[in-house]
């Protein structure tokens, strides 16, 4: 145990995800040795992130304004909505530069063990967005695990009767990988989702 502030810092850092007691100690001593301006800057952004960052009123993505960059962008296709679990999934899909529609961040996936049902997710907000009739296709991009699949199934049962085109991201082999390294579940899915080669 260290004295006062140092131990407080180690304890706080240790509560962050992915940081164990050893790493917390290392970061604490790094900060102690660092330039005061650097530390002030870090402290400043930590406070800012809580003060400034809001969630987009349309899609639920992190944003500094009431609407996020993507929802404000007039070049985006209003007919398409891609539904994801977390804001970090938006960033991942944006990196592909393939998708030109807008997003909807649910804030998680259905998981009764953790007490998360449809009411805990931003599903009501999604339904409100659909009311205007502009949207024609919903792409379900929840994680390809049990909870993500359950969420996708739930949403598709909710959305299909509304006459929307509902699609799910394909799952299969990673591009540039070797077949032999694929695990059996992925390979099995890839078999199920195989398609014929057209010229």
């Amino acid at each position: 145990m260290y004295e006062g502030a140092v131990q407080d810092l180690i304890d706080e850092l240790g509560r962050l995800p992915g940081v164990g007691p050893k790493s917390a100690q290392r970061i604490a001593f790094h900060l102690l040795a660092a330039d005061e301006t650097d530390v002030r800057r870090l402290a400043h952004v930590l406070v800012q992130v809580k003060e400034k960052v809001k969630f987009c009123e349309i899609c639920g993505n992190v944003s500094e304004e009431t609407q996020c960059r993507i929802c404000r962008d007039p070049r985006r296709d209003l007919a398409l909505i891609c539904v994801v679990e977390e804001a970090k999934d938006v960033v991942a899909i944006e990196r592909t530069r393939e998708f030109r529609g807008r997003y909807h961040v649910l804030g998680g996936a259905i998981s009764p063990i953790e007490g998360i049902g449809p009411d805990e997710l931003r599903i009501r907000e999604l339904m409100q967005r659909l009311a205007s009739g502009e949207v024609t296709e919903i792409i379900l991009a929840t994680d390809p695990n049990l909870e993500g699949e359950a969420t996708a199934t739930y949403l598709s049962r909710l959305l299909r009767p509304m006459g929307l085109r509902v699609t799910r991201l394909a799952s299969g082999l990673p591009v540039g990988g070797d077949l032999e390294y694929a695990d059996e579940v992925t390979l099995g899915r890839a078999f199920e989702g195989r398609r014929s080669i057209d010229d």
Partner: protein
Amino acid sequence: MYVTALGLLDFRSYQQAEVELTPGVTAFVGPNGHGKTNLVEAIHYTATLGSHRVATDAPLVRAGASRAIVRTEIRDEYERDVVVELEINPGKANRARINRSPVPRPREVLGLLRTVLFAPEDLALVKGDPSERRRFLDELLTLRTPRMAGVRQDYDRVLKQRNSLLRSAQMARRQNRSSAADGQLRTLEVWDSNLARTGAELLATRLELLESLRPLVSGGYDAVARGKGDARLEYKSSVPLEPGMRSREQLAEALLAAVRDKRQDELDRGVSLVGPHRDDVLLGLGDLPAKGYASHGESWSFALALRLASYELLRADGGEPVLILDDVFAELDAQRRDRLAELVAPARQVLVTAAVGADVPGELSGVRFAVGDGLVSRA
């Protein structure tokens, strides 16, 4: 295949142990409580990633140690050497290495070593709860098709999620919060279809396994009991099944229909009532069920027949499994003991444990190790 060496670090009573093994029969002899079973338990763990004695990993780690390491060197059916190292970390993820390279999941080692273990606990296969027989089937499934480990994990996860949902809906209803209950139940159908999908896959492979096992068990029983009796197996599902229903799609439909049928019961009790987790295998001798009617000796014959059938089945798949006979001879009468010894003697590798040397039948004279006070030495 056979095991050429076993190395243990902080596993059960062993701080450290190294044992070199050869094909043929090897017997570990020593007083009870000195660690004979721990050796074969480690080998069986490498094959199944589970212990035949305990349900969790914690007791496998030596008291005071934080993790245990089991290193098993295997020569497979193509005469290639494979080294499997398992690090058992109770409460955390276990880790595995194959030929010194780490693998992403311990599950990857399944299939490299196959074992069939006979133990005093086997009597529970005949006399015990349905869970014993389900475990028998599923363990054998995983040995034959390692992919099934993933399916079983998925099924268990779906079941846990679904039970959570049913329970919280039940709580909400009891507290008269009907809107909360309705909210939770809206997702129930999603979990129904997940249960049907993963459950049907498990059910289909179990039914298929039972078909292949049936003649072998009946043959095994005749061999052990010298043709006295007519051992039968029948899968008893919690889902009403038509005869001949085998495909995954048909089974998924039947499961879904059964789930809908039991809806009210499930809501009242807050737990999933249909699916492979409620199934059983009925063991019968002639027209009577073995449980409750078979004598102690007949029950033992049946248990041995189930294990012998597993061995035959795995052998027919290619890759003869290692046979492990953990303290079984002391449990058997002289006749069954001799019959079993005769039947297993020709196997590629047989590992036997016994408290006294006299318990090991003459047919199984081979290499002998003395086990005492945490030391294993060639006798």
